[in-house]
């Protein structure tokens, strides 16, 4: 068997294992694609979007979405084929999405010539950490392809990089901006340092052409459906809102000094050092060290070609981690570049540890390896897969059959199933297919379960936290004369600020124009007859 063939077999085997792992354990976000309660917010958003789109509504125009069209439309297409369900959402966003992103990470690791064991460990870390998907993956891919485009002679890489950069924007505007900035710096660097500037210009020309082509296609598509300008406005709106004081979900950054234990107990101090909050500081400490590492390598002229790629990835990771200022709950979403950087450093450290005969050198290498391993271990501890719960999977085949409508082949807890059924029954009994319903708390998945449209654009009402949007919700409700507004008294309040608090105008309107009725843990607001 020649090497190429062996590589192919290994690759297929790896893919199979990854898919199997993702299918059974899922990633850190859920227990498993076929087992575990539904995350009504994160998974719920997709459920609501698909439900509305299947009813003929358009993204951005009729539905508020912070993601790009390329991130949502695949699910919509699958839903059109297979029918919408939570199961499908999980297959698309946990299995397929993570799998594709892992493949990209694998390509990056192979480009960095990381040893196989380390590569597998890194892929494992990426799989178990929640939130690693194509949003981060497309950024990594764009960087990798842009690097290749400048290093390789063929213009195909430039075209691929251009497509990837455009796609990054269309998957997530945030990621698109980060990758374009980083790649922009890289191209600038190449334009300055390249011996033959013309080659770089030619490559950039192809890259820009491919970007333009993708955007042109999207423009034609979006314009034909009439949501192009809405997409542009809502993208700009999101970028401004999420970078300023108007951010809907955000809290202060943990203060390291205030969290410090007041006792001298070693255990308390260890707990403090490895606490979730301090991990944020460790993360930035790591980026500081990384940048200093590259700085020294540059000054001492010991940089290698692949250092540029890894530096670009470090920059990408740093940019991603900036979102933690204000949204530190998104910590796991920013970790993928860190694990790739870990792999890179571990590769060098292990090599040094192996080769070196000097005591101090071995000791320092070992210390650094240990620190990286400890950090990773702590991450694993926090986001560990639910190994034991997987033993329940066989039950899924019996329980999933009884799952509520639109849940699909997923076994959920009886409590959640009862809650869903209660609402489904109520809606089915009291409304027609064409009626609208507004869920006042952040449980957008309910729109999929009841298959009713939302009279407003906001499936997550917390997003409408500025006055303009609050009044938009209010006016939509007034205009629509929505018959039922449902409020789950046990729903989670984002950042401990409930939607009643966030949308006072809407709350006042509901209290003044609706009658209350209790249904389990729900309050059903029924419009008063005039």
């Amino acid at each position, binding site marked *: 068997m020649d090497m190429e063939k062996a590589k192919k077999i290994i690759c297929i085997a790896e893919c199979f294992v990854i898919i199997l792992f993702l299918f059974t354990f899922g990633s850190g976000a859920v227990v498993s694609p076929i087992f575990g309660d539904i995350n009504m917010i994160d998974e719920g958003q997709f459920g609501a979007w698909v439900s509305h789109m299947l009813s003929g509504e358009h993204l951005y125009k009729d539905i508020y979405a912070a993601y790009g069209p390329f991130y949502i439309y695949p699910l919509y297409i699958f839903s059109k084929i297979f029918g919408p369900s939570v199961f499908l959402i999980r297959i698309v966003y946990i299995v397929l999405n993570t799998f594709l992103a892992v493949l990209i990470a694998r390509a990056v690791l192979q480009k960095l010539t990381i040893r196989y064991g380390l590569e597998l460990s890194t892929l494992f870390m990426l799989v178990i950490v929640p939130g690693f998907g194509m949003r981060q993956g497309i950024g990594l891919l764009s960087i990798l392809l842009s690097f290749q485009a400048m290093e390789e002679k063929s213009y195909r890489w430039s075209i691929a990089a251009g497509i990837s950069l455009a796609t990054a924007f269309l998957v997530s505007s945030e990621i698109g901006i980060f990758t374009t900035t980083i790649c922009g710096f890289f191209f*600038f660097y190449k334009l300055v340092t390249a011996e033959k500037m013309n080659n770089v210009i030619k490559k950039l020309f192809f890259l820009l052409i491919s970007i333009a082509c993708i955007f042109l296609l999207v423009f034609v598509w979006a314009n034909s459906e009439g949501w192009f300008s809405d997409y542009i406005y809502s993208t700009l709106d999101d970028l401004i809102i999420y970078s300023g*004081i*108007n951010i809907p979900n*955000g809290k202060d950054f943990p203060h390291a000094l205030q969290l410090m234990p007041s006792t001298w107990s070693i255990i308390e101090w260890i707990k403090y050092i490895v606490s979730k909050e301090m991990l944020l500081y460790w993360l930035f400490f790591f980026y*500081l060290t990384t940048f200093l590492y590259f700085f*020294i390598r540059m000054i001492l002229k010991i940089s290698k070609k692949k250092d540029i790629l890894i530096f670009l990835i470090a920059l990408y990771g740093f940019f991603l981690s900036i979102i933690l200022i204000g949204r530190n709950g998104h910590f796991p979403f920013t970790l993928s570049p860190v694990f790739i950087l870990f792999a890179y450093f571990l590769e060098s450290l292990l090599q040094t540890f192996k080769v070196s005969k000097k005591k101090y050198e071995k000791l320092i290498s070992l210390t650094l390896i240990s620190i990286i391993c400890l950090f990773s271990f702590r991450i694993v501890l926090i986001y560990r897969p639910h190994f034991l719960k997987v033993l329940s999977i066989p039950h899924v085949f019996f329980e999933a059959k009884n799952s509520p409508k639109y849940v699909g082949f997923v076994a959920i807890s009886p409590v959640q199933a009862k809650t869903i059924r209660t609402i489904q029954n109520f809606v089915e009994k009291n409304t027609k297919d064409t009626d609208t319903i507004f869920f006042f708390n952040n449980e957008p998945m309910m729109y999929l379960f009841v298959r009713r449209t939302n009279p407003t654009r906001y499936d997550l009402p917390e997003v409408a*936290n500025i006055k303009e949007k609050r009044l938009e919700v209010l*006016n939509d409700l007034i205009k629509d004369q929505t018959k039922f507004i449902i409020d789950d008294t046990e729903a989670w309040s984002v950042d401990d600020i409930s939607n009643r*608090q966030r949308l006072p105008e809407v709350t006042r309107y509901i209290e003044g124009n609706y009658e209350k009725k209790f249904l389990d843990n729900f309050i059903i607001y029924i419009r008063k007859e005039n």
Partner: protein
Amino acid sequence: MKLIKRILLGFAAFFLVSLFLPNYFFSTDILNTIPIFSVDTWNKPHNSLLADPVFQFEPWRHYAKERLSKLELPFINDRNGGGVPFFANPQAGVLSPFNIIYFLFPRAFSLHFIHFLKLFIFGFFTFLYAKKIGVKKEYSFLVALSAVSSGFFITWLQWPHTSVFLFVPVVLYITERAFLEKNAQYRFLVLLSISITLAYFAGHPETFFHLLMIHFFYTFLRFRENRSFFFKIVFASGIGISVSAIQLFPFLEYLFHSSVLENRLERDNYFFLPLKSLVLYIFPFLFGAPHTSFYRPIASFTNFQEVISGYVGAGVLSFSLVGFILKKTDKMVQIWITVVAVSFLLAYNIWPFNYINELPVISASANHRMSAFVSFGICILFGLTLDNVISFLRKKISSRSITVIIILVGIFFVVEQWIASHVLQSFPARTQEVIQYIAQHILYILITSILFLFLYLFINNKKKYSFVFFALSIFLQSTVLFVGYNTVFSKQSYYPVPRLIQKLQSLPKGRYIEIGNPSIPENINSIYGLHHIGNDDALEIRRFKEAFDAEFPQKNEWKNPEHASLPSLQKFGIQYVISDYDIRFTRDVAQSKKSQRFPLTHDVSVPLVAKNMTFAGIRILTANHNRVNTCSIHFSLADSMKKVLTTTKVQCSQVRDLMRHFVKFPEVKLKSGEKYQLIVEPKNISDENYISLWGDSAGQPYLEVFYENEKTLGYTLLYKDQASYLFHVSSSQEITFGGVHSILSQKPERILLETASKQESRLEIKIPNYPGWAVRLDGKPHPLNTNPLFLSSVIPEGQHVVEFSYKPFSLLLGAIITFFTGIFGLIYILRNLRNEVLIKKLHQNWIRWVQRTVKSTRWWHNVIVLIGGLIVGMLLFIAVAEIIPIRFMMPETTAINWYTVHKYPRQQEYFYFFFGFSFILIITIFIWSLWIWKKQKK
């Protein structure tokens, strides 16, 4: 390096001098021409032409500084014209390199430093340029001196025209260097682009256009045989223009929406100099000068500043002309005489160049100011040919001819003295003064010209000290004449706050209009934080101006409306009226002609027919001859039987030049349709103590008669003094809406309102509708009514948040072009830098150093130092953050989220994060560098 050192030395010297100079280099005394600023005492302004700096440039600088200090970019000026483009107006100079000094430093320092700097840069680069084209070092100094003290540069010093013009020698010098230094040509091409950009930002598009034109012409004449270099220069200039796109594009947009472009294209020969003004090239003060005791404009459409721009001194001019004849085969002389000739012919609109002046763009670019290039060119010619002229004169002029010249001047002096003592006695005192003034001026020019000639004839030009005498000769014919043209004033005289302004400042915010005399004219209102409905920025939004002119058609010499109706005021959302008369009275123009000024040295009787019952007062147009008069004027109203019905008195000291004066009479009942006589009697007058009235050729004064009005007009008197009345206009609002509205946030470029209405209603904000404004309803784009004069939009029923914001596409496009051209330029610089010998040398040294260092250090040494450095950095950061806690304001928002509920300003974290990260990084790098340096030393 030597050049940079010299420039920095010059900057440092002027910086230090400016720091210690007292007062302001600024003439606010011109405000005395406005009655409200001189209610109690009137002093003659020292220079009546220094108006624009006080009325426009300083208020704009002030406004820009005020906005920038709040970290706001001033795209719109909300204090004039209801909200007009500000950034797009180049003369506002938001990006001007000189105004940046004003924005950063205290006013007193900046006003000195900016003008010193302008003189220094212009002089220094003229010197360098002259030297570069082959003029001797000492002569180059003389060229620089004569250019700096030329009529144009001194009289326009406080204008942005000179801020742009000073780049003429800069770009010429850089072009010459670029040609000569072929190995480092890129540096000069980059510098040329930067200079062109800065010249545009300096704030006067017409002068910038002239600069480009002359530079292109010069480069073509000089390097036409070297095509590749010529195109490089053109390309570099093009890049410079592209970089300025961020302001150029908004300006072009404003220009095409302005009233000025149409006006300029329509006028014939307005912008050209009269040929008779050529005499001023020799005798600059023949028609007087505004900073001296006598001044009269040479023609009604122009003034001293415009016609003096070509003046460099009789000596320099005559030497240049002789020099040209002697050295006419020299290529550089030919180039410069061509430049001078072309500029001259364009400025004076002489055939066949009058056809060029009719070409598009050129026809609207105020080519009469090309005379500045005439003066600059003469100075250069002077330097280029001085040696030839000196040797020619020394050969040709004998001691006999000199004796003859001296005798002739002596005779002139004697004749002048004789005429003064014998003939002029019979003339009025003022005429005597004027004739003597002119005669003395001619004499001065003749004497200094002889001295000029003498010095060049008899001082050995090969001696080093000679140029001091030569400089003196130039100094006497230029600088000395303009001493006092621009002067300093005390800080207290900087925009004083008269009582009327104090009153307006105490009232709720609202826009005002001036009726009749100027009181707080457009733009200076900005200094006081007041809002004027008028706008005077040399552009003005065409649609708004046309509508305003249609609504207020009666305009006076000051372009102020003479009368306003309540609906017109309400239409423009005007809340306050400042007037020189009581607008509640009924006004009747009894005699409307005002073409002539006649001295009020005898009694005047004006017949009038009563139009109403109760006579309240009259309004006349006066002149005080720019002096304090102590006479008085008695006004009486008599019936047809010559029986005096009512009388009143006005002190001449209260009268101002070309201002209307409202004379209030004790009320008297008249019979409507009956004939009456107004009798005007001057008292205590003398030759130098009288006022004049404007009226018709028959000596009948311009006269308005006022009668009591019994109807309630909707005006409430808020304040009055001798010069002004202030009224509040009822039911006039800046925002109109059919429902209820409240302002959530208001900035000049963005207004956020909350509205509530039971039906669809039109929301109108009295801001001129100008491209770039957009509406959002509840965060979503909403149609803005395109036709109306003001911003308006139809708001659906219900409760909404409406946002009007100014985000012009022209600015975005300009910013993109600027950004990408800047990036292109940066790549070009960096790529060329790589080939610099110095950089190559540094690189080699670096490699050698690295080879030594890498050998002597272990990687884990670096790790330990880095970790140590990081710890030190972090501890230092914690210490700094604890010692200097920074307080942040809660940003303006309508959001309800964790931050607003807990009143936690989010930007605090961004600040601490980025500052902390960079701080620790820098400290660690510093510690590591220190360690590696120490290690190397060992």
